[in-house]
């Protein structure tokens, strides 16, 4: 969990302070840093790490780029009667889920 928190902090720091200096160049949607962030927030650390690294490696002109959402596997526990804030939509695909960031007021 500490690793995960650290990774999220790191990606956020990169998004705010380093990425703007380099200019927006990602060939994908969501961008590599978003992808990593969504992965780290929804997947276990090691899987998220490996997938993020692979994604960055693929983010060059030898690859087409385009739309590439994180796909995670997760056990869903139902939650009844509670008011929840939706952060991500998980769209079922086979036995896995595509992660899409929910558009709530905070992110707008």
């Amino acid at each position, binding site marked *: 969990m500490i690793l995960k928190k650290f990774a999220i902090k790191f990606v956020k720091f990169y998004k705010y302070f380093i990425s*703007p200096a*380099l200019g927006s160049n990602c060939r994908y949607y969501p961008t590599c840093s978003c992808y990593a962030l969504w992965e780290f927030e929804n997947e276990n650390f090691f899987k998220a790490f490996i997938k993020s690294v692979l994604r960055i490696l693929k983010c060059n002109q*030898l690859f*087409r780029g385009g739309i590439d959402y994180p796909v995670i596997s997760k056990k869903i526990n139902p939650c009844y009667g509670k008011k929840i804030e939706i952060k991500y939509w998980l769209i079922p695909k086979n036995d896995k889920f595509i992660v899409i960031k929910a558009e709530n007021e905070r992110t707008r």
Partner: protein
Amino acid sequence: MNGQDNLRRIIIATVISFIFFFAYDYFVLQPQMEAASKTEKISNKAPVKVKRESENTSVSKNEKSFEAKTVAVIEAKNYEIKIDSLGRISSYILKQNKFNTDGKHLELISPKLPKPLEVRFKNENLNKKAFSIPVEVSAKKIVLNGEKKELVITQNLKELVLKKIITFYPSGRYDVKVELSKPADYFISQGYRPAAAIDQLTIHGVVIKKSDDTLEIIEDGDAEPETINNAIVVAGFDRYYTTLLFSKKPVKAVVVPDDEKNPVTFIESTDNISLIGYIGPKYVDTLRSIDPGLVDVVQYGVGTFFARNLFLVLDYLYKISGNWGVAIILLVVLVRLVLFPLTFKGMVSMYKLKELAPKMKEIQERYKKDPQKLQMHMMKLYKEHGANPLGGCLPLLLQIPIFYGIYKLLLYSIELKGAHFLWIKDLSEMDPYFILPVLMGVSMYIHQKLTPTNFQDPMQEKIFKFLPVIFTVMMATFPAGLVLYWTVNNILSILQQWIINKFMESKKALTKVKK
């Protein structure tokens, strides 16, 4: 077919990036491994040795009452060495004006003990004599005119005679043969590390190279008593200078922490021994000419492996161009050239993109108010038509280690100290007129203006807009060479982006392609 092609591309991209990433991992892990091996090495014998050594230290403190006078002077074009009446190098002055501090020639010998070539005996009685009986020298003054010359230092301790036969070279190298009339346990030192360039930013201490080519770096403040049986190089170093002893056969090196836990090192022997020494700036070429293995004495802190290889490239570019500033610019161009196959592929896909121009306009109109959706639909369009104008994250991230490597080179390389370029007197210092940082800020601003951006977060957008200012202020205090690299890189990015944008805008070109 498609799958195979995909695989090949993954492999190419992976190999390129792994070269960089691996170098990094290796050097983040290395210090940890060293720390582990350090603890292993503290043998049972070590504490005994330490006692011996600390006694010796106290003995050598007594010696202060005995006035050690200069008994011989060796003069060469680049240096002046003084030998004191205890047969040690008590002063080593670099005569080139390049190294001057406060208008004076630079003294490399630290006031702290031991001095280079200081011999301490294990036997207390003998040691007292060694620190009270003055030596005899074969010549009072030696002048080197481009050739090597020999000096014999003899110290008659009654029970035995200690002889040091030293051959001085104009480069700062010296060969020393220690001869005893009968065997006795003794220690000889390469001297306390130079104290001419000590600061908080850079590492200083001792590096010991072993016969199996592994290195042990003991930074000041971290020293532990230990004995290394297979040392071949023992070198004290500060940011720019070193004093070292090198042996072709493995020797026993003893590390003793002083009061501040800084490492003090000796080579222990009981019999005659032949060593090669060097005192002076850590010029890679000079060190390599003495022995290729001595290049490892130049340490760059974390990322040494990477910085060293980058130095070889930069040094090559310097030898072609004759100026370090030009060499840095050439390096930027070289990096861009290495990434060119990628850029070129991107450029080619621009032609395809032209055909999409009307569709893109439509999307831009439709999602004007929602940048996230706009970005998504653009990507969809790119993917459908197999065209993508963006460079990708990988080529950009590859720039970061190079940037870091140059930072390290500017910190540690004596070659880059005092390297002038146009109005800048020293690329390793900040630009005194702040011209480069401002140029960098401006180039960054222009680059930002030219690159299409879309943010999901208003906060991010604000930071983005202020970033050129933040970077200008931040980079103002950094070495000018680093700012130069970034500025040139920005300018090349602008050029590239400008070409891309021109392609996108010109509708004439579009019709030509259609024809």
